[in-house]
């Protein structure tokens, strides 16, 4: 099976950039493609507990709904917890569906994926 890795570096301060990886990932799963999203830099703010509930733009559903849909579809989520140290955020305050990972994992996932798309 093919795999697409999405790298999300944008956060909730640019809400229009937060939906795409989840929607693409959910669609990938419907196409029998493995989908992974790696959150780093500002992207980690999306997975901070309670943040996605606050994001809803245009005619899109809330970001929380889109995330839940992606998780249900089998999209795997990885989070670079070390990115918290860029912003003085606390560690460990993320939704439990995301696996904490780091530089070695992102390098490995990117080499194993058939395509890497960055937002």
């Amino acid at each position, binding site marked *: 099976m093919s795999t697409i890795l999405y790298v999300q570096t944008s956060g909730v301060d640019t809400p229009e950039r937060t939906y795409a990886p989840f929607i693409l990932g959910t669609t990938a799963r419907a196409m029998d493609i493995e989908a992974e999203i790696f959150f780093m830099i500002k992207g980690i703010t999306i997975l901070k507990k309670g943040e996605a509930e606050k994001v809803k733009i245009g005619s899109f559903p809330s970001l929380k709904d889109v995330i839940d849909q992606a998780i249900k579809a089998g999209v795997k989520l*990885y989070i*670079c*917890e*070390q990115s918290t*140290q860029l912003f003085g955020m606390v560690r*460990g305050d993320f939704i439990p569906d995301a*696996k*904490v*990972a*780091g*530089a*070695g*994992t992102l*390098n*490995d996932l990117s*080499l194993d994926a058939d395509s890497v798309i960055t937002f």
Partner: protein
Amino acid sequence: MDATTEGGTSYLSDIAPDAELDCVGLYCPLPIARTKEEIENIEVGQVLKVEADDPAAEEDIARWAKRAGHQVLKFDKSGNLMTFWIKRLK
């Protein structure tokens, strides 16, 4: 991880390491960087025991070992503390 690395009470539970590395309190990417340095200080076939408490290390070290061509003989997790027994293969 493969079957030989799962669980904390396998038949490999009494592996005697040839060297030990304490990465407790270190965060990504330091556990990988220090593990790479230390594994080069043991001989091929010998075992390095690594302790870490950065949650990222669980996935990172397993993937590093596979990519670098070494074998995680055993992985143990107790609370936040993780222990890896890594055999240098090359």
